[in-house]
């Protein structure tokens, strides 16, 4: 019996059924028959949705990686841009701070005040609110006729010399990085030139004053009085007070 034939035959027939060894003769054969039932075949799973899902997942994963990659690289660009911005702002901040410090320098402040016609007060009076007493004599500040010494402005390269020329422009406009047109460059240079000129004037005045002082000093060298000795003993006479 070939295997092919076997499949065509019924699964079991009475004729081929083997008698079970337990079966005893005389017992009703009907009772011992194995009950037969139709075996329902399990429905075959369809493969297609799974494959589709796999491909979908793959596509999704690839997309995710792509999106992640794009976002990372664009964030990188953003990072670089922000870094550059931070750098620029740091520099700008530093520059502006320096400008403030320059205006803040006591000698520059005093020069500006003098330029505005302000005069330093030398005397003041005090009112004690608890006792209602007035002490000291407050006098109006008087402009001294003798010009006092001028302490030179800090010699920081590139800083505006003491008092900058008044400008209608927003001060920050000057600080903006100029574009490549040479017009801006020339205007910037002319401003620098003006500042440099003021500085040069101030320097010239200071130099003149220094020369005068030096000339005076040179003119008035006293004759040395040794009182007949070679080493001056500490003289006892203390003039003045």
């Amino acid at each position: 019996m070939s295997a092919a034939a076997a499949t065509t035959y019924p699964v079991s027939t009475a004729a081929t059924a083997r008698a079970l060894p337990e079966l005893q003769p005389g017992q009703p054969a009907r009772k011992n028959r194995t009950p037969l039932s139709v075996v329902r075949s399990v429905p075959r799973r369809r493969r297609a949705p799974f494959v589709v899902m796999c491909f979908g997942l793959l596509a999704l994963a690839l997309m995710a990686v792509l999106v992640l990659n794009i976002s990372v690289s664009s964030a990188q660009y953003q990072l670089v841009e922000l870094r550059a911005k931070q750098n620029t702002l740091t520099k700008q901040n530093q520059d502006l701070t320096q400008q403030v410090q320059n205006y803040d320098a006591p000698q520059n402040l005093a020069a500006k005040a003098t330029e505005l016609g302000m005069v330093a007060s030398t005397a003041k009076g005090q009112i004690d609110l608890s006792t209602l007493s007035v002490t000291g004599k407050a006098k109006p500040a008087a402009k001294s006729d003798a010009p006092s010494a001028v302490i030179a402005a800090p010699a920081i390269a590139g800083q505006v010399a003491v008092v900058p020329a008044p400008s209608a422009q927003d001060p920050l406009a000057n600080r903006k990085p100029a574009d490549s047109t040479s017009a801006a460059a020339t205007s910037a240079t002319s401003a620098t030139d003006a500042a440099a000129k003021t500085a040069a004037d101030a320097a010239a005045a200071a130099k003149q004053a220094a020369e005068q002082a030096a000339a005076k000093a040179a003119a008035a060298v006293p004759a040395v009085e040794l009182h007949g000795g070679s080493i001056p003993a500490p003289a006892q006479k203390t003039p003045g007070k």
Partner: protein
Amino acid sequence: MAQNTGKARSSRTSSATRRLRIGLCLMLALLLVVGAKLFLVQGLDMGGMAEAALKNRLTPTVLPAERGKILDASGNVLASSVIRYNVVVDQTVNTTTATFPRLETVDGKDTIVKIPRDQGIEELANVLGMKKDDVKNALTGTQRYYIVAKDIRPDVEDRISKLQIPGLASEGTSKRVYPNGSVAGGIVGFLKDGTTGQAGLEQTQDDVLKGTPGKRVFEIGADGLRIPVGVDQLTPAVNGKDVKLTLNSDLQYFAQQAIQSQKDKLSAEWGIIVISDVKNGNIIAMADTNAPDPNDPGKVDAKDRGVRAVTAAYEPGSVEKMITAASAIEEGTSHPLDTYTVPPTYTVDGQTFSDAFEHGTEQRTLAGIVGYSMNTGTVMVGQKLSKEKRHDWLQKFGIGEAPDIGLPAETPGILTPADQWDGRQQYTVLFGQGVAQSTLQTVRAYQSIANDGVMLQPRLIDSYIDPDGHEEKVPAKDSRQVVSKDTAKQVRDILESAVTEGEIKDAAIDGYRVGAKTGTSESPCDDGKSGFCGYTASMVGMAPMDDPRFIVEVVLQRPKGSIYGITNGPVFRSVMGQTLRTYNVQPSTGAPVRLPQYAK
């Protein structure tokens, strides 16, 4: 077939097996050689190959530490470091490039424009503020590295980089700037090569200010890219600490301006003003004439670049009479109202002393002797103490002991031992001749009288501020009781009477009680042999006397003209007045002390 070849087959099989075995042995031997070599190379690293390779890949970079700032008491910046750029050029590139492309906006559209070399040079010259020819010379040549301009501000550097000139590059550098210039310039000092301090606090505090540079070591491949999994060691840079001073820059400016005016007016050689806080020894201002601007210290003479208040020792003159009076009172040999019969000239041990003014025989109190600054009377008061006592008292008041405030070349002054004093010097030290001290030492001596006899060491450095903002106060040095509280009070009364009743009336300030003492000494020449070269005129005082807050000393070295017409009173008054105003000191209460100058 099989039965035919039975014998031949067995012989062939054995020879094949043999060959196979030989081959296997050969292979194994070769494998052993290769394995051994591998072990030698990888396991033992005989030739130091791996090490050499790693060394080749490792690239160290130095992360510079930022130098700390120097600040005044209210946080104003006296010295700080900023970013600057050096513009450098590769001349070989620039010289050979006749035109270069640049992206420009023409009529609202971005277009690439060809720029001729000359135009580029002209634009660069405009931005740099240099002459076109100079720039052209700098850009032309065969050098691969040439510095066109130094210390360019960041915004200018930005403009330059936008010009896109071929071969041009900029390098970041750090530059020290001193926003207040010559205000406190000598105290702050300056750097010699942009990194190391050469003068002032920049020199003495160099270790604190400069910090520790960091280091980054990483592996770099032959293609110039970093190897991500390689070594990456980062030692972060530790920035320098900030140094905060006790100075007030406004008062420092005021004092410098005042002493400079006085010096110019009287054609003196130099002048000093010191303002000190009585209660804690803080130095509020220490002004010098011709103070250097640390941004450009070369503009003033080398001798003017230091801080004379601590470096210059000179004979103080009559301001020393305060010490004589204090020691006599403390020793119990005198009292402010004790009477002395002062002759026109006074002779002791064959040494004759006279006064700066003519007078007959007068009945004076100790207050009157100090108030009129009489040498004769001072010798009479002081001679009751032994030579050793006089020496010890000068020493107790800090003469011969250098104040340590963190500046270079602080002088201790000259106080010769008592047994080396000659017959005259033993008396002249009583009125400040034959002994030398710095201005700060005088201020310290007066500070101890103002502070009820307790001498505090002067302070200039208030605190160190860590990069993380933590402030570490510099502790005050040990103080010492020089004279008793009672003696200090009596000496203060004498000093106040010198202003109210004595000869220093021009030191008086409206609304405040002031005590002061002048000093005029004969100053030997600097070369030490040509004798007398002029006077040192000084005035030291304190206010308000009901509770002294500040000491101001004004010193003027060798003013020209008659010494009798010179007074530092107005300068003292304006500086002390400004100090009291700045710190909102309450006007004095109570009646001013007026000790009689003449005995009844």
